[in-house]
């Protein structure tokens, strides 16, 4: 799926020019193309589906309103993710709905079931483990990890999106990975105790 985004960056310019001519179908195409990544990025920062969906929608509206200002100096996706990142970070600062996220609910249910779910590292469990690891991180670190590993953004692009300089991004990636490794170690250790 990530390859579909990477493959046709050039197409974006065509669709952007169509949108600027008033073609709403072209904008609909861009929304469909990027909605999952936009939502994932917002969700990783906010840890709440409802808020993340609102942020994702707001971001697309902002993109539409400011599309004339997009100068194609950077990739459209970089510009879009920057808007999503800033909108989500602002949302965290202003208000965070106190409702527990679905994933957090799932996480606690798992804990109640004495971690039976994480005994086998199948796809679903991997997702839950990753969620646990991400929950231990700072919001900007979650965003960086998502952009780097999920969307395969370059360091320079992540720097542009987050407003953090490239060397700091490298340091953050290294530290975050180390932190995740430590947390994963704990999880796997617990699993081994559970088995024995």
């Amino acid at each position: 799926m990530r390859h579909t985004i990477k493959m046709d960056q050039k197409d974006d310019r065509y669709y952007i020019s169509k949108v600027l001519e008033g073609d709403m179908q072209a904008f609909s195409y861009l929304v469909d193309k990027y909605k999952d990544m936009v939502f994932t990025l917002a969700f990783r920062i906010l840890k709440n589906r409802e808020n993340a969906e609102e942020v994702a929608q707001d971001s697309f509206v902002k993109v539409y309103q400011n599309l004339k200002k997009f100068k194609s100096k950077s990739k459209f996706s970089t510009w879009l993710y920057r808007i999503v990142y800033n909108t989500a970070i602002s949302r965290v600062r202003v208000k965070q709905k106190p409702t527990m996220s679905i994933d957090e609910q799932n996480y606690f249910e798992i804990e109640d079931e004495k971690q039976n779910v994480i005994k086998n590292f199948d796809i679903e469990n991997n997702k839950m483990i990753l969620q646990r690891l991400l929950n231990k991180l700072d919001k900007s670190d979650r965003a960086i990890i998502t952009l780097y590993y999920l969307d395969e953004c370059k360091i320079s692009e992540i720097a542009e999106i987050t407003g953090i300089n490239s060397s700091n991004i490298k340091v953050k990636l290294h530290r975050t990975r180390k932190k995740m490794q430590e947390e994963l170690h704990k999880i796997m250790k617990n699993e081994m105790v559970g088995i024995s």
Partner: protein
Amino acid sequence: MELSDKNITRKLDELLKHQDYEKVTEDFSDKVLSGLHPYLADVKSQYTPLISKRAWILVGVLLLILFILAYVFPSNTETWFDIPLDYLSGLIENTKSIFEISSNLFNNLDTSFLFPVIIPSFILLIIFDRLIHFVMKNRSFFLI
């Protein structure tokens, strides 16, 4: 299962590389597009004249150039505006002769027609073509 650093690193790589996108609700795109309706209404309600002020100025300048050229390259006794009807009939005759593959086509042309009409028209055509090209290239600027 041994919990070596290598295993942990491998597991983490696996988790990070095989992570997938979170899925939005099915009506997400519809919600986004309906959220844009207020902005679309604003755009539609704005009156945009078919020919902008700048385009009118452009036409004015072109006409001015036309007048200047008409007086810079006058014919011997007549003003430029008296010429076209006479030469139009001449042109029709010439056109006829083209279809008849007449050998004396070029003999029918009056050379005095060359300077006052053809050359300025040719220059104007080039200028107009360049201007149209410029206007089309900068449409957004001219429609403000």
